[in-house]
């Protein structure tokens, strides 16, 4: 039965992702006092794209049509692993945080390969910048995971959430720094404004868009959907690890219902924060991203050091 519940949770996860994107779009338009499209517009975009006939450029090899499916599959799998509504699901034991980072790396690799497959300048540029940013972001991501592993003595997501949930509201400086670091990494990984502008098609500024420039039809739909799921994934990670209260510990309908409501509220608040930051900040030059990410790394290292110095309270024998 728990396997069925895990499957349902994954389906819920996938279904809710475009909604989150739509909600962020709405908050941004409202902040820029523009009239925003409906929250369900992303669903319509995806449906429209499914019916379109995909275009396969001449120099493309088998990697070009296969990449969307692999990207989508690995993102869905990572969605299955991250506990959205309830913890202690069987799928949570399939992998831990580092494997999650591995999935992101797998999907990014195939996206980059697809981008370079056509042999256009933009594909290559997007690929090179994507790989550079992600390789700079990975150390700070791992450092945040480290801080968590040091406190919760585990890298398994549901165990970590249980640990934080059981110890109640404890103001840990290491968690504050880790949270800051993780949020900055989220912005870099999912290609939001300060690092990369998702909406633009201006040749010189786009990173994520440059790779999927040649996609059309159902392939583009799959990739768009996968990036929305990834955005929600990071949101859920931040929400559940640092603020796990309200997540369902058992599979009773009441706690599941409460879980869904709480996660919806938390994601909404995070979306508002993200939209606010996107409106306030402008996109940085590519070689300024390195300072941005080294600052994120500094935050995570501070998190780890503060854990060792302040919280571990281990007396020297």
């Amino acid at each position, binding site marked *: 039965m728990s396997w069925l519940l895990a499957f349902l949770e994954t389906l819920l996860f996938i279904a809710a992702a475009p909604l989150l994107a739509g909600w962020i779009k709405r908050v941004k338009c409202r902040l820029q006092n523009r009239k925003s499209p409906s929250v369900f517009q992303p669903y319509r975009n995806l449906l429209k794209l*499914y019916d379109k*006939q*995909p275009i*396969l*450029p*001449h120099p493309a*090899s*088998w*990697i070009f049509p296969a990449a969307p*499916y*692999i990207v*989508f*599959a*690995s993102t*869905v*799998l990572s969605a299955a692993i991250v506990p959205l509504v309830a913890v202690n699901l069987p799928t949570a*034991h*399939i*992998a*831990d945080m*580092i*494997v999650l980072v*591995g999935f992101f790396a797998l999907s990014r*690799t195939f996206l*980059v*390969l697809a981008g*370079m*497959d*056509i*042999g*256009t*300048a*933009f*594909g*290559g540029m997007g*690929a*090179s910048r994507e*790989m*550079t940013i992600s*390789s*700079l972001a*990975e*150390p700070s991501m*791992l*450092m945040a995971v*480290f801080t968590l*592993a040091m406190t919760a*003595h585990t*890298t*398994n997501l549901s*165990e970590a959430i249980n640990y934080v949930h059981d110890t109640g509201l404890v103001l840990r400086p290491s968690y504050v720094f880790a949270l800051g670091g993780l949020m900055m990494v989220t912005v870099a990984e999912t290609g939001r404004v300060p690092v990369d502008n998702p909406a633009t098609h201006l*040749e010189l500024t786009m990173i994520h868009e440059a790779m999927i420039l040649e996609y*059309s039809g*159902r392939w583009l739909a799959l990739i768009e959907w996968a990036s929305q799921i990834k955005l929600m994934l990071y949101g859920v990670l931040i929400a559940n690890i640092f603020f796990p209260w309200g997540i369902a510990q058992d599979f009773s309908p009441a706690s599941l219902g409460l879980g869904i409501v709480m996660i919806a509220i938390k994601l909404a608040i995070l979306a508002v924060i993200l939209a606010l930051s996107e409106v306030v900040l402008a996109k940085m030059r*590519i070689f300024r991203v*390195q300072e941005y990410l080294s600052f994120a790394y500094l935050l995570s*290292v501070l998190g780890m050091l503060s854990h*060792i110095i302040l919280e*571990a309270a281990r007396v020297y*024998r």
Partner: protein
Amino acid sequence: MSLFFAYVSVLFALMSALTALTASKQKEVANLSRSALQHWPALQFKAENLFCESGYAVRHRNFLFILLGFSGLFAVLAGTTTLLSGSITTDILPLGLPWLNWHIRIDPLSGFFLCVLGLPLMAVSLYGSGYVREYEHGKHSMAALGLFTGLFVAGMEMVLLADDAFIFMIAWELMSVASYFLVVFQHHHSANRHAGFLYLLMAEIGAIAIILAFGVVAGFGNGLTFTAMRSAELSATWASIAFILGLIGFGMKAGLMPLHAWLPEAHPVAPPHISALMSGVMLKIAVYGFIRFSFDLLNQFLWQWGVLVLILGCTTAVLGILYALQQTNLKRLLAYSSVENIGIIFTALGLSLIFFSSGMSELGTLGLIAALLHCLNHALFKSLLFMVAGIIWHKIHDHNLENLGGLIHRMPKTAVFFLVGVLSISALPPFNGFVSEWLIFQTALQAGSLDSGVLRSLIPSASAVLALTSALAATCFVKFYGVAFLGLPRTHHAAHANEIDHQGMVTGPAFLSACCLLFGIFPTPLINAMGNLTQQLTGFQLTNISSLGWLWLTPVSQNTAAYAPLYVLAGSMAVGGLCYHFLYRRTGLNPRKAEPWDCGFGGLNAHMQYTSGAFSMPIRRIFQPVFDIKESLEVQHEGPASTRVKSIRYQFQAPDPVWSKLYDPITLAVNRLARFAGIIQTGNIRTYLGYSFFTLIFLLWVIS
């Protein structure tokens, strides 16, 4: 039993070396067989057409590589039987010094490394016979190539079986000398000669450092055999001196950072099936030597050693991959990536040393297993990558990444093998590279349980560097694959390359790709098989590695971390299949071929693509201080007041800074010292008489 297999594998290697000598002696072999087999006409007839003129060269070449293949097979057999049975068999051969005969011993550790040697060797033997056709009509003798390949393999196998310092050193340097001759096989290029000289010089110095290390331990034990050395009680300072000497000796052979200069020079110039063996296997033999010396012979651990090895490993890893990113020569890129992977292995060993020294043997064993697993994985995918690089050279005769492109259309099979290699070396989930790197991170993550604060902060930052390395490795190999195989062909040769026709050159890489996937999906049985190894070496066994069943991997305990590779693969296949079914079946729209959109520019040609230099430019800009980059831009102008630009030529080199900081000063110092010493040979007889006179006076003065 396993020792019998091991002996058979060494004999096969030596036989392949000796039969290689008859490469060009077809007539002698023919009439020798004719005279030897007069009494059995049937046999004589069979031997007649076997050694007849026409197919002699091809049959001889295949026979050589079949022998090598059997040597690999028996090595794997010996390894697996020892590993599974956990038995230690020793033997004494009547060779060697009168009072120190050759002691031979095979235990699970050498058994494991025999497997690490055997698997790539079998693949190389399949691949080699196809590739060597290239040298057939060259001017260098095939006999030499075959002879030294056989000796090289035999040397490596004997290193694994050695149980006393004397035979260990003989096998060790036999391995170095044989591989030197292979590096210098095509000696008409001066680069090969330079690389060969550097390689042998550093092998020599490393070997002497190892002899001194053994000397220290033997000094306190009462003999040169490993058993005597194990019982030697060394004081902390002497043990550290021995350890540092061993680290220098084995590190030089493995390619640790300051001593790695020979590796990117020697591997690219050797024939590809040899550089596959050198990179994949010989570096692991150096790691085996280091483990045997520091974990087995020195039976004490100090945390300073672990920290030193950890720091060396991290710097080697990150600098190795940074230099790999800047290379445009295929094989130099792979050589630098070998340096990076050796750095990762030594980081894992450093972690395990730290844990052992602070008494946590369980985690130390985990670190050791992670390092050993990464040795095996690297041996597999690095040999695969070198073989594919060999195929590219065989078909296109060009090592420069900038001249390739679009090979996936004309060489689909090679592209698939290379993709598997790239995915495993970039440590992506379903493949074996990810498993070992994941285990290393798990070991690092347990740093919290250490009690010294310094270590608890050092290890996470070291693993952050490791994370950066694995991400950069992914960048480097994605660039390699993207620039070489995808996009439009940049040169005429690349445009007209065709697929491999030789059967062996396909089955070799295929076998290795299958191994990569297999060990990626089922790591737990492999780690259980290494249980005897760690039990015998460190006295501990990872008990709950498969507490959730053999499909799961739970290194420390059930709820600290778990990874089920099979579920991951099955899950992603299921989701991918479902999407494909729903999307394709439902709409029924198959894709339409058209011109690429390219933001409306159109008119694509090969020069508009991102080259490898361009791809790695951001990393080069960000990590500027690490390289000493030489960039030059020549712009030819023409036309009135030279306003119009006729041609732009951009030259870019990224030499290894270790040369300018360490190796050139040393050569300069040696030459100056030699000139200074040369003064004594003035040529004038009276000065010579003066030397003899003053030596006598000086000695007489000393005496009285």
